[in-house]
């Protein structure tokens, strides 16, 4: 006998069972008992909260956007403040190569940080050095030829010496330069950071005036050499 046949036997047996009928009168008895129960209070009509949920969802979404925006804004502010702490002048930090470095990097690279040329602050404490080339030369070409003009190597060396002497920042003709920047010829003119410079070269140096002045006037310094050998006339002005 197959399994199906066996199960069919059981099914046949079960089919002999009928739905059980309650004893006569039971239905009425039970209903009468239940009817004695107080009618339950009608439940409060369900309020439609779908619009509240929709508004809440929209408000939550907007709130989330505001929070995210605030988070990034505060992060930006913090970065700016960090940059400002490292650059008392409160200027934007830029990398000499890419013109853009993160604020954290700027913290550790104080000396390498430079400011854009149009953002050079007023010098409040330091020295102002003016390098005046001899006026007797008919043109720059001749000055260069006889070695009595300020060369890119001279200017680069001067900048290095100033930073070594503790300069906080240095600008040449209102162009901020870092210790890593190098002066170079651009046609007939000197240039730093791609910006041409015209004599006289006004070098503003922020820092301790005494130390800076000692470094500039030190015998054997680049300026001292220029003064004696190339007849460059440096003017040093102390700003306190």
């Amino acid at each position: 006998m197959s399994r199906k046949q066996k199960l069919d036997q059981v099914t046949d047996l079960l089919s002999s069972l009928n739905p059980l009928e309650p004893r006569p009168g039971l239905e009425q008895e039970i209903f009468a008992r239940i009817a004695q129960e107080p009618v339950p209070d009608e439940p409060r009509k369900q309020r439609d909260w779908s619009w509240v949920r929709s508004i809440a969802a929209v408000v939550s979404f907007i709130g989330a956007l505001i929070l995210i925006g605030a988070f990034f804004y505060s992060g930006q502010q913090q970065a700016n403040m960090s940059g400002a702490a490292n650059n008392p002048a409160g200027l934007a930090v830029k990398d000499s190569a890419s013109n853009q470095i993160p604020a954290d990097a700027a913290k550790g690279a104080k000396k390498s940080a430079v400011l854009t040329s149009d953002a050079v602050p007023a010098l409040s404490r330091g020295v102002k050095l003016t390098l005046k080339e001899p006026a007797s030369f008919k043109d720059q070409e001749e000055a260069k030829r006889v070695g009595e003009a300020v060369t890119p190597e001279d200017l680069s060396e001067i900048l290095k010496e100033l930073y070594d002497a503790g300069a906080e920042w240095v600008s040449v003709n209102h162009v901020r330069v870092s210790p890593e920047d190098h002066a170079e010829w651009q046609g007939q003119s000197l240039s730093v950071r791609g910006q041409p410079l015209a004599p006289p070269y006004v070098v503003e140096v922020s820092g301790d005036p005494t130390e800076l002045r000692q470094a500039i006037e030190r015998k054997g310094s680049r300026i001292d050499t220029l003064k004696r050998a190339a007849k460059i006339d440096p003017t040093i002005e102390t700003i306190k």
Partner: protein
Amino acid sequence: MQNFTERFQEIYSAHFRDIYSYVAYSVGSQSEAEDLTQEVFLKAYRALGSFRGDAEVRTWLYAIARNTLRSYFTRKKPAAAGEEELASLASPDSSPEQVVTDRERLGLLQKALLQLNETQRTVVILRNIHGYSTREAAQILNCTETNIKVQLFRALRKLRKILEVDPSFVLERTVASEEVRPL
């Protein structure tokens, strides 16, 4: 308020016998069945106001009945119904001779049903005794039709193993793979 009573009466009249039969087969005792059926409809009466009509009334009532039976079985371990109680469960539509003839067999079948678990027993009652389709049974038990078929197959297999160890039934004996409690 009038509407509430009328609505309940309508539901009560439509489903009383069904629920009673289900409860009676589940507990195997007439007196217990009467009390439990009353409990089921009392709960339905109290909860009718909050019945939202998401499900069919029949499904809702069976859910109440199943919960009531679960509570009942938790309170009291189901005991095999006595001869007298089983006899009283026999359908009054049957002829006296048939009642006498089938009495034992029905009683044993009833006892066998009580050995099934709650879900299997409910499926057998709905499908084989009350004659609901698989779809209707699935709707009532809030499960899939496949699940109903699986439960029914297991229930029939178990019933067969229970019944074939009893000489009253002329089922061809097979080697029972699982131990069953003799009736």
